[in-house]
């Protein structure tokens, strides 16, 4: 039996701060600085051509009262919640299944992985063609979903469902991979012991696999939440926020005000709000789940 010891704070072998410098510089230059500038721009009125004019809290008070923003926030939250609810069960089961060792699983896993390899834009274009009401598969899909007409991308619910489906289809492989890795880390001995005690597959799943995947679930959830809050390319290509504003989620609203209306000050306020919300959401998730304590799932072994 290889019972490992887990010293709570290993001092040896952990790299010093110097190791973080290249990454930190890269982050500061390509993420930190632009974010700070966007933060500054959110207090200005700027059309992208002239010099930004300081406008104080104008953009922020407008943000608070804007129906378009309210709609966008609601849609973003709805999309995030539905993304988590639909994807998590699928990726959990697929990931655990794919962690097995049989040959056919490896081949099938590789096939499942394909959507992640293509660019979002190419995929969105592909799906837009598929959803074409006259020349695509939309009439068949509409029949399958029980919709009256093939106006999938033209109906408010249909377009929203299409976004949920296409992004899910695209990102399920990624999360499946995370769960596969997590499930492979679970020592065989747990299952052997459980088998000896007479536990069946279902029992083993709920009493061993699921608790052992705790940290994996948190990681995947944070990625899903932040990802869903910032989906952009799929919406841009597939629905352009439409029909009407039925899929105008916050990142799309930012694009629309920034690069269609060239109201860059206000778009910066939207962007800043999005950064704050997404950061808060991921911190909150990590905090609530106790992930920060880095408690080992193998404690008590």
């Amino acid at each position, binding site marked *: 039996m290889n019972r490992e010891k887990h010293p709570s704070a290993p001092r040896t072998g952990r790299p010093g701060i110097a190791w973080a410098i290249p990454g930190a510089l890269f982050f500061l230059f390509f993420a930190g600085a632009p974010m700070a500038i966007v933060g500054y721009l959110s207090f200005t009125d700027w059309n992208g051509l*002239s010099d930004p004019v300081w406008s104080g809290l104008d953009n922020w008070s407008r943000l608070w009262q804007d129906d378009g923003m309210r709609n966008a926030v609601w849609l973003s939250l709805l999309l995030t919640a539905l993304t988590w609810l639909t994807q998590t069960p699928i990726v959990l089961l697929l990931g655990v299944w794919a962690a097995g060792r049989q040959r056919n699983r490896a081949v099938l896993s590789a096939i499942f992985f394909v959507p992640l390899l293509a660019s979002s*834009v190419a995929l969105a274009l592909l799906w837009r063609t598929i959803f074409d*009401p006259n020349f695509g598969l939309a009439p068949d899909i509409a029949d399958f979903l029980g919709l009256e007409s093939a106006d999938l991308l033209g109906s408010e619910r249909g377009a929203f469902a299409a976004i949920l489906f296409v992004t899910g289809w695209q990102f399920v492989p990624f999360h499946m991979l995370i769960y596969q890795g997590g499930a492979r880390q679970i020592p065989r001995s747990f299952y052997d012991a459980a088998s000896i005690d007479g536990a069946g597959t279902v029992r083993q799943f709920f009493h061993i696999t699921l608790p052992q995947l705790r940290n994996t679930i948190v990681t995947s959830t944070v990625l899903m939440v932040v990802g869903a809050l910032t989906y952009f390319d799929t919406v841009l*290509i597939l629905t352009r926020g439409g029909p009407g504003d039925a899929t105008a989620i916050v990142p799309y609203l930012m694009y629309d005000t920034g690069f269609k*209306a060239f109201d860059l000050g206000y778009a910066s306020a939207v962007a800043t709000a999005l950064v704050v919300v997404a950061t808060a959401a991921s911190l909150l998730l990590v905090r609530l789940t106790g992930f920060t304590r880095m408690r080992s799932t193998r404690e008590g072994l």
Partner: protein
Amino acid sequence: MRSLDSWRTRRTRTLAGAAALALAAPVLAACGSDGPGGAGGDALEVWVYQDGATVIQEDLVERFNESSDIDINLTQVPGENYQDRMRTAMGSSNAPDIFFNWGGGSISDFVAEDMLVDLTDVLADDEEFRDAFLPTILDAGAVDGRYYGIPMRGVQPVILFYNQTLFDEAGVQPPETLDDLFALVETFQERDITPSVLAGADPWTELMWIEYLLDRQGSSAIFDRIRNGDSSAWGEPAVLEALETTVELVDAGAFGNDFRSVGYTTDGASTFFAQGEAAMHLMGSWEYGNQLTNQPEFAENDLAWAAFPTIEGGSGDPSAVVGNPTNYWSVNSNVEGERLDAAIEFLKMNGTEEYAQALIDNGDIPATTNAEDLIASSPNPEYAAFQWDLISNASSFTLSWDQALPAAQAAPLIDAIEQLFSGQLSPQEFVETAQAL
């Protein structure tokens, strides 16, 4: 102190530019293709909207480069996001030297920032050059009475295309009045044919209906007022009536049930029309060339055209036309000295008979005074003559609203039009939204 101020301005600009770049990154990534090419040395960087007609500009640039010391480097920007990309580029250090635009609102922000060369004197000094163009169309590219654009493509009125074969089979004529149009909607619905295809996934196609309905209902003067900054004109009863007619058409099934998912840029609408699934298609004059390229049999055997019907009781002039008078070249004000001379030489080539003939050969009607004489040599003289009559008899030629208004108003207006067609906004709510822009 002055140097400090200018330093600060420059710094703010750089900062702001960096932020714009950060914001633009996903957009540019979404476009997926190359930005402005690295023009070597003194070459003039010219941007043109990429479509089937750019071969004419390619030839023009080739001819220019043969005789000029300063070469032109032509960049073709894919159509869908042209306006946004050009605008983003103009705010950065990668701005083109000469660029394609729609005149009016599409360049008014640049004019306000002194970013364009004022061509008024160039036109005044060279009468032959000035008189080469139809005055109304030259004027349509002007901002506040000064000329910033030189016409460079054919005129693009919006035309009611229809399928002659389907009309013959149903024993009907193209609509002359709005009542005729509603009657046709019924006729074609009974025959299980979509009365008029509409590419609702590209809301600018929906705009074309509203533009014509308002022109017929209450005359082009109403939009003229809006364009000149009088947003109270949205409150005119004719606007509400035109919007209500639009909704009535949607509700009557004029555009079928699936129009909101149909795209124009993906050729969904044109193919549907060419396959005989729809009887009519309200579209810019370029639709003819589009069909001739993609569905030549349909274009030659079935495709017919008519002016937009009149509205009984409407106060608009039935001869009024909407669409794009033409496209223009504008010159970036950072082009100076010899490069500016070369740029002007290039612009002057757009007024020559040789260039007008190239447009005619491509099936376009050039915005030049000699166009009428050239019509006979068009690949389809009948269609060319129809367009010529339409535009030369037009009492007004209203530039598409999304091009006539500055971006800050055009973008939300287009959003509102999409909401009107999808039933999220009522005509009354649309008016209120538009007035608040």
